[in-house]
């Protein structure tokens, strides 16, 4: 996150210690956040590069090698069916679980990131417009309150069910569901960002530097992009981490309720959902994807915590 932010602020670093180096130094003092960042990088690499190193096809059926237990099972039970060619075991159709977790991670993380970016984009747009233009404020914030009063999970389920088939027909089974889930999560989770950004923009636009910018004739568009957005970047980044966490959980919840991706298309939530029926005999099949989801979300939450501490100048230096 910090790296991405560094690239967005090119003019910030002629001095030896730039603002973002400061933030990074502060971020590093938060142990949980550093662990979180480490785990997020690890799981991203695991999902992104993993399939090149572990070249087993996640969809390949291998009935002879079905129901292979994970490798550590040999410690408890000498007769357990294990094999080094399937370190995490296989499912009831002989598909390799490690390959599935990698593939599922790709999709879960991709959905999480895209939905989060969409939500943050909408939230920032609404927040900046409402905070900067007084005329738009009443209308936009009333709208935000209305959306907040909607029961979001049931509506998301309704959207999944009703728009699934047409989108699948237009964009193909995978892309259609991907678009649907990303848009669905995006348009139901921008409200908090919008409220935070609006509040900050309203406070910022009364400050002298904005007045100075306006008095030399800077147009509103430039004031927003040049003076306001960089200053509200920290709350946006913090709410982006929270958004990533909720997006991953929401996608898994939809898959878990059977309304997410189609069944031959693994995501973490989907693998978990498919394994629930056999969890008495094969608890590890539930635990692997569940751990992947929980640890990723935990990591992202800790990063958010660390970022909040690092970016808040009131806490900095304590």
């Amino acid at each position, binding site marked *: 996150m910090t790296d991405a932010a560094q690239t967005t602020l090119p003019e910030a670093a002629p001095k030896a210690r730039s603002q973002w180096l400061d933030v990074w130094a502060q971020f590093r003092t938060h142990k949980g956040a550093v662990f979180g960042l480490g785990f997020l990088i690890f799981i991203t690499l695991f999902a992104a590069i993993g399939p090149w190193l572990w070249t087993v096809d996640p969809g390949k059926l291998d009935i002879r090698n079905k129901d292979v237990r994970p490798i550590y099972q040999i410690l408890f039970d000498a007769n357990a069916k294990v094999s080094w060619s399937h370190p995490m075991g296989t499912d009831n159709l002989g598909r390799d679980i490690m390959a599935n977790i990698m593939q599922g991670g790709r999709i879960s993380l991709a959905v999480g990131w895209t939905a989060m970016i969409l939500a943050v984009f909408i939230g920032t747009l609404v927040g900046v417009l409402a905070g900067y233009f007084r005329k738009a404020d009443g209308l936009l914030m009333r709208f935000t309150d*209305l959306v907040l*009063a909607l029961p979001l999970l049931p509506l998301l*389920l*309704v959207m999944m069910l009703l728009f699934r088939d047409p989108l699948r027909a237009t964009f193909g089974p995978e892309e259609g569901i991907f678009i649907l889930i990303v848009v669905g999560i995006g348009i139901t989770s921008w409200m908090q960002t919008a409220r935070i950004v609006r509040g900050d923009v309203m406070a910022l636009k009364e400050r002298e530097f904005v007045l100075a910018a306006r008095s030399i004739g800077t147009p509103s568009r430039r004031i927003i992009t040049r003076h306001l957005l960089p200053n509200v970047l920290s709350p946006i980044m913090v709410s982006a981490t929270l958004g990533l966490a909720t997006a991953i959980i929401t996608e898994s919840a939809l898959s878990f309720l059977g309304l997410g991706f189609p069944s031959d298309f693994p995501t973490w*939530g989907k693998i978990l959902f498919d394994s*629930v029926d056999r969890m008495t005999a094969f608890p590890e099949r539930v635990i692997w994807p569940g751990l992947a989801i929980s*640890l990723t*979300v*935990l990591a992202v939450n800790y990063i958010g915590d660390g970022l909040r501490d690092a970016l808040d100048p009131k806490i900095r230096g304590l």
Partner: protein
Amino acid sequence: MLIYTFRRLLISIPTLLFIAFVIFMLLELAPGDPMSQMPLTIPPEVKERMREALGLGEPWYVRFPLWLNQFFIVEPQYWIDQTFGTNFADGKQRIISFQSRSPVFDTIAQRLPQTLWVVGMSYVVGVLIALPIGIISAYRQYSVFDQAGTFVSMIGFSVPPFFSGVLLIVIFSVQLGWLPSIYDTTLVVNSWDTFKQQLMQMVMPVMVLALQTTAQVSRYMRASMLDNLSQDYVRTARAKGMSESTVVLKHVLRNSMIPVVTVIALGIPSIFGGAIITEQIFKVNGLGQLLILALQGSDIPMVMTITFLLAVLIVLMNLIADVLYGILDPRIRYD
């Protein structure tokens, strides 16, 4: 305050109407068809008559007011009739489920107790666990207990209910065999044994939902206590020689509860949303499961009614939270 409450009630009417309209139009504009589950052998003209029988023949601007009329006028009339034995409703058309062909509200009334029992219990348990955690965490800030509390609430935020629930089943039902994994709703509590059985089957769903509540409420409680502990009046109270327990549990706690009470009120709707997933895991036949079944069967009246009831709950709880805030904290004035 009374005027404020009244004004808020008035504002919530257009809000609710708008929400009803959004849900209705979403169901209306969606390309999904309630007849898509029917066999393909049914000839098109019969299908058309079936659609009309379901009340789908009219355009939306006719059906939406009809639905509003049914929801806000006819159904309460039936409810009053049932309670007081009057006859206001006079055989008017009720909201009928596509799937079961019985009135939607009768099915909801059958399912509501299970959900309320599990959800309500978990919320009470969650809040009761969260408050002491929050208080002790704030009083002993940065202690081992505080660190542990922060960690537990982080886990509560991060572990989704469909994993914590499944994990509990694997540990307590499969490995240890202590608790039943399926919630038996036909159980009638009439003796000590059945009471114990009821208690056993409620432990896991309640714990899964309570973890989420605890995570949230304990954080707010801690933050609010911390705000108050550094205030001048606390120093004054201590300087007067009051005992530490009086200072913390009377002065500070009462002031810190103000924002927490509103958070507790605001959290009630989201716990119902969480119940959708929890009910699916533990096979509780409550409202959440009803909603999922209705969704899968394209039962539009049922989906519409349940979703709208949840929206009513959200709007109502927002209102209650705001009014409570004003009542509890005399510094807040809304006029």
